[in-house]
């Protein structure tokens, strides 16, 4: 039987990594780090988790140590947030290019300056193109479940790619909530042992990530793209299997009261639950509104987005990150681009809100929907709307 306990989501993620029986954790307590790696350090120190905990001197080194561990065939986990993710940046590309299935929980936060430890998706969007599988979670249960799924997906011999689980800083990481933990035996069955086909070993030397002149570099990038695209099928299979095993189902784009909706809102992360509350209220008033929640960010779920949008007339996308001087939010750009080739497509209206920990209440989501509908009818001289800023 699964155990239901009240636990801080950060600690729960560490417990999920323990259930996955990770071999190596390398981490650095940069501000802002979370309790995720702190609790893993405790679990290793107490002898509850048989793993090597490598306290490194920076986030750049944390990811570098993870690469080495994963390349040697160790199941590897780390966590970071905000500025820490930025400091890892160049090493992130190496993990995906060398096909090393590191799993990393990212507590999503704003970026400096001014200094902010509060939540938004600026850090996520800055690592969008690093070649990692990336998914958003909305609550603690989804975080725990998807840490388990991440090992199975990333380490699948058809995939061998690193996976980031994005969870909102504070709104998820600092929340005590009721969570179900599966039995160890169930997890052992769900995640097969990690076997890298050609691990680093002194007796069987291999070269990874070697020098690539123009005659070969491009081919490696094409192969990487093909591989990441193909990973979607394995992700779908994993979620399907997870659902059958644990009775909790996940999909790349989650729909909430979206059938027959003329107006759709699209969100990511923990704000989605707040948005649901707003949708319930508007539906109660007879309004034809629904919600799409983007779970799979990379590989981008083009088909699922098109299908979920259906015959909606207006699609309002809320980003929690801003591409300065650009078209607004990165998610809105991609969704708009995914729909552009469709014969029949909704008007896509972009909003940027909730930066640096600014909350959006259910009433705020109603305002966003009202304003989005107004823009769809009357037009706007702005490329996108900024919501919730004092003028």
């Amino acid at each position: 039987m699964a155990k239901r306990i009240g636990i801080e989501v950060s600690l729960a993620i560490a417990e999920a990594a323990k259930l996955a029986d990770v071999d190596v954790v390398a981490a650095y307590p940069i501000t802002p780090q979370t309790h995720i790696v702190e609790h893993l350090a405790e679990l290793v120190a107490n002898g509850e988790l048989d793993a090597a905990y490598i306290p490194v001197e920076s986030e750049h080194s944390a990811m570098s140590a993870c690469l080495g561990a994963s390349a040697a065939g160790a199941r590897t986990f780390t966590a970071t947030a905000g500025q820490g993710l930025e400091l890892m940046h160049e090493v992130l590309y190496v993990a995906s290019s060398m096909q090393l299935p590191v799993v990393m929980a990212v507590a999503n936060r704003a970026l400096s300056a001014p200094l902010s430890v509060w939540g938004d998706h600026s850090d996520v969007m800055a690592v969008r193109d690093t070649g990692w599988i990336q998914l958003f979670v909305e609550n603690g249960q989804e975080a725990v479940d998807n840490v388990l799924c991440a090992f199975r997906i990333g380490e699948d011999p058809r995939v061998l790619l690193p996976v980031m689980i994005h969870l909102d800083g504070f709104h998820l990481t600092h929340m005590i909530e009721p969570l179900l933990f599966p039995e160890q035996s169930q997890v052992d069955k769900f995640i097969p042992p990690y076997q890298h086909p050609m691990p680093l070993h002194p007796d069987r030397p291999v070269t990874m990530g070697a020098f690539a002149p123009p005659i070969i570099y491009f081919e490696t990038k094409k192969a990487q793209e093909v591989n990441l695209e193909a990973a979607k099928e394995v992700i779908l299979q994993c979620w399907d299997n997870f659902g059958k095993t644990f009775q909790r189902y996940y999909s790349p784009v989650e729909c909430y009261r979206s059938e027959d909706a003329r107006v759709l809102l699209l969100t990511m992360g923990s704000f989605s639950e707040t948005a649901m509350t707003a949708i319930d209220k508007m539906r109660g008033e007879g309004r034809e509104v629904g919600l799409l929640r983007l779970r799979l960010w990379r590989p981008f779920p083009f088909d699922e987005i098109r299908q979920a949008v259906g015959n909606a007339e207006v699609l309002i996308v809320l980003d929690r990150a801003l591409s300065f001087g650009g078209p607004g939010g990165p998610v809105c750009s991609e969704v708009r681009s995914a729909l552009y080739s469709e014969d029949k497509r909704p008007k896509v209206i972009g909003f940027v809100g909730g930066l640096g920990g600014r909350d959006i209440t259910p009433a705020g989501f109603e305002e966003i929907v009202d304003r989005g509908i107004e823009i769809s009818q009357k037009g706007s001289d702005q490329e996108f709307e900024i919501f919730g800023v004092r003028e």
Partner: protein
Amino acid sequence: MRDTNRLIEIRWHGRGGQGAVTSAELVAQAAISEGKYAHAFPSFGPERRGAPVLAFVRISSQQPIRIRAEIAQPDIVVVLDPRLLRIVNVASGLKENGLLVINTRRSFQDIEAELKAKCKLARVNATSIAREILGLPITNTTMIGALVRATGVVELESLLEPLRHRFGRLAERNIKAMQKAYEETLVKE
């Protein structure tokens, strides 16, 4: 107030180091152990010892809790430090017929005069109980006893396991402080 069929929102006021965040966590864990939905969290941001801090709890026996915003209109406010009344409007946003649970040695009349808020009141001298039983003026577990007495949002027994897990060898003294506060808390409708 014992009716947890609807969503109940509790805001804790304390100072960094007094354990307001821990209180919130323990109450949520007690509610979860009763099979209810609950969550708890601190006011988001860096913490400083001695500075006013907030912590929040939501409890509902009916459905999962989706709102994660800080609580601006609480049903219940718990105040760990009596001196906060002078520097923080602890009754801010308190719902009509809401309840304030205060650690104080003063009378209901005095508190009402200072607060100028219309609400139900519960009071206990938690500092004195904590000094006597814990040897420290740390009032977080004591004030849980007062909250439970005044509201019944969780059963006192449901807190025993979370307290034992949290405090280890110091648990029994904290449980004693909580029980004494439960007995001594006065409620004025």
